[in-house]
């Protein structure tokens, strides 16, 4: 029997996580409080987990270290070892965005990327530049949003402003409000669906790539350890021609999996494994490993 793809297991984990945050508020209502909280801060049977950015905002504005800081550090520690797996394996907005992305590829066939279609010269040039020019990296946009948000919070706004840009935050807060139902958070669904609609017609994962401030700290944490989990590329196994793009087409973040060591790509890759799946029927040149690409698994 064909072993299940990484994609299958990832969808299972993503769905489980998304559904858990639907169920938790109802469990809480039934006096089961082992799990409580949302994607901004969570309590896992006494163990604090937190969005590192919300933890950083509180720590900076209050100038004190609270439980939430430990929760944020735990999240950063996970990213330190496994990379930004939160984005691709847990975040419910990531799941919705990926669904919309594959839907947009199906229904809007115009400009659809087909595997093995040769790259146009412009695209070739673009792919060559990926990661080389840091200023053209979408990550820089995300980083700027974080810096502006932190500056605003320090200067003008008396509350953690960047939390309002947390898509998983809006998702989980909507479900938190459902059993209480005295004050519904309609802003959440409006923001989520509105952004998904924009992504449907632009056929790009705009929020995750260009906006999401919550991903910035975990992405940076993922850069610190060279030996962390990442996609490794073994050039001698690659059977595809240089301009073939079966792995590139699989990447919803528009990265080139055959350049996994460039810093610009390393900071964006979320270890979703879609390129690894795409390569399984080819030369199996792409695989997960701990350590820099090429070194891992020889």
């Amino acid at each position: 029997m064909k072993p299940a793809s990484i994609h299958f297991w990832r969808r299972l984990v993503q769905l489980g996580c998304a559904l858990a945050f639907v169920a938790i508020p109802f469990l809480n209502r039934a006096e089961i409080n082992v799990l409580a909280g949302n994607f901004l801060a969570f309590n896992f049977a006494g163990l604090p987990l937190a969005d590192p950015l919300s933890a950083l905002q509180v720590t900076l504005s209050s100038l004190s270290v609270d439980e939430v800081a430990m929760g944020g550090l735990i999240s950063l520690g996970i990213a330190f070892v496994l990379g930004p797996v939160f984005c691709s394996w847990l975040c419910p907005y990531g799941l919705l965005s990926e669904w919309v992305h594959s839907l947009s590829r199906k229904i809007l066939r115009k400009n659809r990327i087909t595997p093995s279609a040769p790259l146009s010269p412009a695209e070739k040039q673009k792919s060559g530049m990926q990661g080389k020019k840091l200023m053209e990296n979408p990550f820089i946009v995300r980083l700027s949003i974080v810096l502006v948000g932190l500056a605003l919070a320090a200067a003008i706004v008396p509350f953690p402003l960047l939390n309002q840009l947390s898509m998983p935050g809006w998702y989980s807060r909507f479900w938190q409000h459902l059993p209480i139902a005295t004050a519904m958070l309609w802003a959440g669904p409006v923001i989520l669906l509105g952004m998904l609609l924009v992504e449907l017609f632009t056929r790009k994962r705009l929020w995750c790539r260009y906006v999401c401030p919550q991903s910035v700290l975990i992405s940076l944490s993922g850069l610190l350890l060279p030996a962390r989990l990442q996609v490794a590329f073994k050039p001698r196994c690659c059977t595809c021609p240089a301009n073939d793009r079966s792995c590139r087409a699989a990447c919803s973040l528009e990265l080139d999996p055959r350049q996994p060591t460039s810093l610009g790509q390393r900071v964006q890759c979320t270890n979703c494994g879609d390129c690894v799946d795409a390569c399984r029927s080819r030369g199996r040149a792409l695989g997960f490993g701990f350590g820099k690409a090429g070194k891992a698994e020889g």
Partner: protein
Amino acid sequence: MSTFLRPPGVLSEEDFQKRCISCGQCAQVCVFNCVELVPDFFLGGTTPRLYQRKSPCFLCMKCSAICPTNALRDVPMEQSGMGKAFLDAKKCVDYQEEAMVMCWTCYERCPMKGTAIVLGRGGYIPEVQDACVGCGVCEYVCPIHAISVVPARHLAGGG
């Protein structure tokens, strides 16, 4: 319904707004489902409130214990600091000598009975003491709304 209380252990309103990250754990662990999560305004947080006329705080202190950012400090109930009750002697039936009533509902239901509300003047008229933390139970139970809680953020010197 316009006045509301913050949950027990609350910091000053300014510090509370800085620290509250809208994680909602306080509302989720509240034993009596009293804490409501209310959007302050569109880009503000979704912060916890208690509407004492609807469901007051019974000082179980679960919310302040779980708050990960210490926007609600983990303190004993005597230091909850949510506000202070004020009793209107003109309305309270116990104060009306001609009424000949010993209601005592606020005194009997006060979670800090004997320290926050005591029976003074010979032992039959309820009086609010400085120990009152403003949980709102008295306001909730008073049959004629003769006692009400002023939130800490509206008190001079506090909040």
